């Protein structure tokens, strides 16, 4: 979208205080507030493999460590590997029994790495059976993990027992982790309790590892034998396989492809979705898409006269109404200090109204299978909006009159019969209009004393009448209308010298 909307010379202030172009913003219809990717809650909606476009249920994704079971990437260059049919020698010899079975190997079309390079035998099926590497330490680490679990559990039980004892006003000074012994040890400079009394209850204890006095020496030939860089892996190739971190290329194994996700975005204030994708991995459509682009009038810079410090100049902006409802737009002066104060007051009100207890945990019954174990979620934490740090160096003469934007009418785009609207416009403000667009003239004055080639920024508050169809439908009333205010920031260009 950036080639249509960019460069980002027009930015809107999101409710959270970040400035973003309208194409990066969402509009929550329930709160009638702008939201952006920073201030909404992201959730994983579904997992899929980007190569085979297969949807993977989250339980399966977990058991496969978030990787596709069938697709591999190249351990050398990280591009996708493709299976290749091996040219069977047997068929050349005319052995029919063997010739019937095709054999496959994995091949990288980018760096020409192949599974044969590292001695992996060819497989009889395209999709699988490729050998996996095992962690050689897995067994001993398992024992350790089980032991640690037992120790900590015993500690926990001990703690709980102690708590109970104390509650019963029965405090023992002479139990096994006794105070006296510990104090004694401390006095002679040893740390308190040495032995782990809880360990005794454990039937099997793995041997603590013993440190060795003899250490690995450098290989003798390292000082004389020239090295071949082609045989030594790069740091990235090593880290691609964190467990083994092979140092030579003959130990590179194909790597399962990491799964991709589709995300659901949720408004933190009202817990409604502002974006929800379709489940199908190959679909780029959305079930819910509350992009600000569809709800808030778009502002674009058409022309601006050369900017000179202290001299008023004409700025033409184009306003477009993306909605099916007529709207009225008016301007207000941008006052950043005041804004932040109001915002803060509003925020504390908001927090009072929506304190954590008040918010009902939202049932996610309509969620896709992606998040099966979640039956309810705790209410979101609303983060305090930050103050806008952008400064302006140019005043905008705020027009006193407002103007109307007609609803969007797709058919009108192809209607060349001329403008047939009957709107009385302030000729000083509206220069020209067509269907749902209006070209508006503003006067801006860059601050006195700005040096040449300074970037000129200005801003104003745009108030537009927003017609909310959602609440209307729910309560079977007329669509509700709100006055929604957005802070708009414009980057006009750089100052030039006098004529």
């Amino acid at each position, binding site marked *: 979208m950036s080639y249509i909307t960019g460069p980002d010379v027009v930015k809107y202030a999101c409710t959270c205080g970040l400035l973003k172009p309208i194409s990066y913003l969402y509009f929550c219809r329930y709160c009638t507030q702008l939201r952006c990717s920073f201030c909404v*809650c*992201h*959730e*994983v909606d579904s*997992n899929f493999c980007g190569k085979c476009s297969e949807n993977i249920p989250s339980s399966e*994704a*977990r*058991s496969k*460590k*978030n990787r596709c079971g069938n697709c591999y990437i190249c351990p050398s260059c990280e591009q996708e590997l493709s299976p290749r049919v091996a040219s069977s020698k047997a068929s050349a010899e005319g052995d029919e029994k063997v010739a019937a079975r095709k054999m496959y190997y994995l091949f990288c079309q980018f760096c020409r790495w192949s599974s044969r390079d590292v001695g992996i035998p060819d497989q009889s099926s395209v999709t699988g059976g490729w050998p996996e590497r095992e*962690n*050689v*330490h*897995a067994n001993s*680490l398992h024992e*350790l*993990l089980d032991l*640690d*679990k037992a*120790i*900590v*559990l015993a*500690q926990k039980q001990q703690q709980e027992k102690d708590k109970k004892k104390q509650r019963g006003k029965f405090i023992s000074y002479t139990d096994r982790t006794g105070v006296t012994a510990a104090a004694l040890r401390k006095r002679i*400079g*040893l*740390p308190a309790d*040495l032995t*782990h009394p809880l360990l005794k209850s454990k039937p099997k204890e*793995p*041997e*603590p*590892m013993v*440190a*060795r*006095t003899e*250490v690995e*020496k*450098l290989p003798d030939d*390292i*000082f*004389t034998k*020239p*090295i071949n*860089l082609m045989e*030594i892996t*790069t*740091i990235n190739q*090593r*880290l691609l396989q*964190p*467990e083994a*971190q092979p140092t030579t290329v003959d130990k590179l194994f194909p790597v399962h492809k*990491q799964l991709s*996700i589709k*995300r659901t975005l949720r408004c933190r204030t009202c817990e409604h979705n502002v974006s929800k994708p379709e489940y199908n991995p190959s679909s780029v459509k959305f079930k819910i898409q509350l992009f600000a682009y569809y709800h808030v009038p778009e502002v674009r810079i058409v022309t601006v006269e050369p900017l000179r410090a202290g001299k008023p100049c004409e700025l033409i902006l184009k306003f477009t109404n993306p909605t099916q409802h007529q709207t009225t737009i008016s301007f207000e002066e941008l006052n950043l200090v005041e804004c932040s104060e109001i915002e803060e007051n509003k925020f504390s009100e908001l927090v009072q109204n929506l304190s954590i207890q008040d918010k009902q945990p939202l049932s996610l019954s309509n969620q896709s299978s992606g*998040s099966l174990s979640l039956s309810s*979620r*705790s209410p*979101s*934490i609303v983060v305090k909006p930050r103050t806008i740090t952008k400064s302006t160096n140019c005043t905008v003469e705020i027009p006193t009159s407002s103007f109307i934007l007609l609803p969007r009418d797709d058919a009108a785009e192809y209607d060349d019969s001329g403008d047939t609207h009957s709107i009385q416009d302030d000729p000083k403000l509206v220069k020209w209009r067509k269907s749902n667009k209006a070209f508006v003239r503003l006067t801006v004055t860059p601050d006195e004393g700005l040096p040449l080639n300074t970037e000129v920024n200005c801003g104003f508050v745009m108030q537009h009448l927003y017609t909310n169809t959602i609440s209307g439908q729910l309560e079977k009333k007329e669509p509700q209308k709100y006055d929604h205010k957005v802070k708009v920031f414009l980057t006009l260009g750089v100052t030039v010298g006098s004529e």
Partner: protein
Amino acid sequence: MAIYETLNSDKLTVVLDIGTVYTKFGFAGEFAPRNIMKSTVRCKRTDRLRRIWDYESPEDLYDLLVEFIHVIYFKYAILSPKDKPIIIVESLLCPTLFRETLAKVLFSHFEISMMLCLPSHLVSLASMAVDTALVVDVGYKEAVVIPICHGLPMLQAWQALPLGAQAIHNKVRQLLGSNNTGIQNLGEDVMEDIKVRCCFVTEKSRALQFASEKPSIQFCPDVKYPIGGTESIIVSGKVREKAFEILYEEDNDHLCLSTMILDAILQVDINLRQLLAENIFLIGGTAMTAGFKARLKEELEGQLENERYGKLHLKKLAFHSPPCKENYAAWLGGAIYGATELLNMRAVTKEIYFKEKRLPDWIHLSETSRNL
């Protein structure tokens, strides 16, 4: 493999070790990180990669961490962070600003349910079932030595020197510059790759020879290292063998990697010194270099013959070999403890955090962690 996966299927706990250059990410109960990635984020304004630890202000760090944690959860973990626990493995010397900002990001931006911070030196012992060791972490910015005695970090004995990958990369660059041109234009990632693929820690006897006036031996063979496809530079044998020497060049205070280890031993109780010397445990990516351990042993033995450390009366030095790669040893400890009840016993919950608005101090934690 199947055993712990079924155990963990109900609860996935992310374990993170955010290093200066590399971040180790994985899940509790697993024995290797899922991914080791650069601790960088792409800056939206300048479109350049920025290191998280190069933050300019608390607000800057907050934004960097939001971006970084977001990528970890949605690109690698494939998990919604909301209402999930997380385990952070961090250095005991981690700046308070970083800890507090990370907690703020995790609790208020990502809405995690609880956070357990584990000290990296201490938990790295978990994979070996020992509770007393001298843990030497040779990372990017510095080497940090902390003795752990009976599961208790001896904080008063810690030693740190700026001897890590960064110093070595600078040394590689400096040495390369003597017989190549345009080295200054190459990025640090190239220096790192040259270090990893070409350099090693040479033997002490050879190092002494090279330091003498007329060495009777020659450096190992040169390597032609390709740059950008068409050009190449010569990585001389001198670069290959001398890059790591910086670890043992004593500075103005006569300090180097071997002295700081012995200084740390000097700081602890006399009855524990021999035990620590027999349980030296090296962690951190730099410790994975070929010849690192052998040379360190030689250097320590040499120092013990000096008057300065002779009073230690250490009879024997012994080194541990962990059941993992050194660069994720601390992460592995976090993953092991993270699978136990410790998470529910010691973690800072959302409720506590929002009441206190801060994390408990390490002093506080280390006292309770004695029984780890």
